[in-house]
């Protein structure tokens, strides 16, 4: 007879694990099983750059131990790959041939780094991504002293800093678009950031698309539109893609952005199937539009909502903000909400200042704070984040009543003071 679990969770990352613990907490009598493809309990992917730089030990990266699952009464099966889901018969088929039956299924399959497989040289030894602990181990074992980091999202930025901290002599960050982290930052902020990176010895090249990886038997360089950069290894940080293969094959409806569409209770379009984490498309708390936020907090929170609801609760996931946060090794960047391009020029007011080494850029839309970008400090981050969350609902938001467009004379300081006063109730 096949094993049967009340709640079966595919994926043992942040979302899957928090779903398991939330389910057990909601209804301790239910049997809960977590399947993980890696042979490791949940660890912090955002901490991987610190593992690479040597700042954190291997143990320091784990969030939970195997024994934590055990003592909570959760069955943990690691190193198991799922071959298919049969939603009709409520079964999950493992690569080993075993079938597991479920009462409720939670998909937390996460995301996969995007790889340019067709580009020349990307299959050579020396090409790395940074998604799992195995990736970091491989990179650490490979060695070298010159690295090219492609892409300037969180992986690219933190990866290049980590490689520098690890002792690489030359680290070159290459971004194909015109400035760094263009999805999250405006050009002005990106320039500030580039200056910080350069002060740490990272060379920044923007507007240069990578055309190929050079080398015969292993990576010896990277060719961009403008030059050849000799290097020992390439770290690819060009983006992540929700891992929806299993869901797609099982006929679970995907959203317009290509991830699993979930409602506010984290239910998918199929009954008895929930989803959470990097593989889902939820709602942007600020714009109300579908969004895929590949970030720790939405995974963790969405996971606990999915887990609790699968166990019979009625929790609601309120959507998440677009957050870009890096605060390590002297590099401190925070971007929340919209960028300038996402706000129509007629409604947009941009305030910017640099004071005591802290760069701050506030974007107002129709008199409401809609975006924040800071470099150099996380001071007042809580206030700005709270304001953005509240402003999601205009009727309840903190209007700054700033005249639009540019004739306004107020400064970043004025706005901060206003917001502080508002918060005081």
């Amino acid at each position, binding site marked *: 007879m096949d094993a049967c679990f009340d709640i079966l969770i595919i994926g043992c990352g942040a979302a899957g694990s928090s779903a398991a613990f939330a389910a057990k907490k909601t209804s301790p009598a239910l049997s809960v099983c977590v399947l993980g493809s890696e042979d490791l309990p949940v660890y912090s992917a955002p901490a991987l750059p610190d593992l690479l730089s040597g700042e954190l030990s291997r143990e320091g990266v784990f969030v939970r131990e195997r024994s934590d699952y055990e003592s909570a009464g959760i069955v943990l099966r690691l190193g198991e790959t799922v071959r298919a889901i049969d939603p009709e018969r409520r079964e999950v088929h493992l690569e080993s041939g075993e079938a597991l039956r479920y009462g409720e299924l939670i998909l937390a399959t996460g995301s996969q780094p995007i790889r340019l497989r067709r580009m020349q040289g990307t299959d050579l030894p020396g090409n790395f991504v940074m998604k799992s602990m195995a990736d970091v181990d491989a990179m650490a074992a490979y060695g070298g002293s010159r690295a090219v980091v492609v892409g300037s999202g969180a992986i690219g930025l933190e990866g290049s800093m980590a490689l520098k901290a690890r002792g690489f002599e030359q680290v070159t960050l290459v971004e194909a678009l015109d400035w760094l982290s263009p999805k999250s930052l405006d050009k002005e902020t990106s320039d500030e950031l580039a200056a910080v990176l350069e002060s740490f010895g990272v060379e920044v090249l923007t507007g240069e698309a990578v055309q190929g990886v050079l080398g015969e038997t292993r990576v010896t360089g990277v060719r961009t539109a403008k030059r050849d950069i000799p290097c020992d290894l390439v770290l690819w940080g060009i983006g992540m893609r929700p891992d929806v293969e299993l869901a797609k094959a099982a006929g679970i409806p995907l959203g317009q952005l290509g991830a699993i569409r979930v409602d506010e209770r984290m239910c998918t379009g199929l009954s008895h199937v929930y989803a959470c984490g990097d593989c889902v498309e939820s709602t942007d708390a600020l714009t109300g539009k579908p969004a895929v936020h590949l970030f720790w907090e939405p995974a963790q929170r969405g996971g606990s909502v999915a887990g609790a609801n699968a166990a019979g609760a009625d*929790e*609601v996931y*309120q959507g998440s903000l677009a957050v870009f946060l890096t605060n390590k090794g002297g590099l401190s960047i925070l971007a929340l909400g919209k960028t300038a391009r996402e706000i129509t020029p007629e409604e947009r007011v941009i305030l910017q200042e640099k004071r005591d080494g802290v760069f701050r850029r506030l974007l107002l839309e129709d008199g409401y704070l809609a975006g924040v970008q800071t470099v150099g400090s996380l001071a007042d981050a809580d206030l700005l984040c*709270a304001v953005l*969350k*509240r402003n*999601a*609902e205009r*009727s*309840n*938001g*903190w209007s700054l009543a700033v005249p639009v467009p540019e004739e306004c004379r107020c400064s970043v300081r004025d706005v901060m003071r206003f917001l502080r006063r*508002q*918060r*005081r*109730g």
Partner: protein
Amino acid sequence: MEVRQQRILYIDPARCMGCRACETVCKLENDLPAGPRYTMVTEAETGEGETEKLNFLPVPCQHCGDAPCVRACPTGALHKREDGVVLTDRRKCVGCHECLWACPFGVPQFASDGRMSKCTMCVHRLDEGTLPACAANCPAEAILCDTVENISRILRERYGKTVFCGPFADRLNGEAAR
């Protein structure tokens, strides 16, 4: 909606005799467990000797015009409805207690689930066209629930007779009583 037309709970302390019927019906109506009290009859002593007196003041949510709790709530769980009622969306509440620190009247309550709840002006009854439980059941008619302008009218009718003072008070009050 104009402020005049917004609903308020008006408390007439001169009429409250401290029977606590409002507390009881409120608990029943809102099915409240031990702990949270949406309204509470508070006592205050005034005067000395012959003028010493125990006063009673029921304190439900004041449904403030510019409610400090609504402003203070970082998650936007509180909002003021068009008709003036201040309501909590408990699903958005994280239990940070900012509303309690901001409220001058100590109104926000926290049940065992740790999320905030408070007097809703019995919005479910209002929406059905009936009065909040406290107002409907106050034997002394010390709790009124109506729009600001109606309350003003009711109070004028209630006290118009006796509000005159000064040298012609007796005559004027006599006329008003006729």
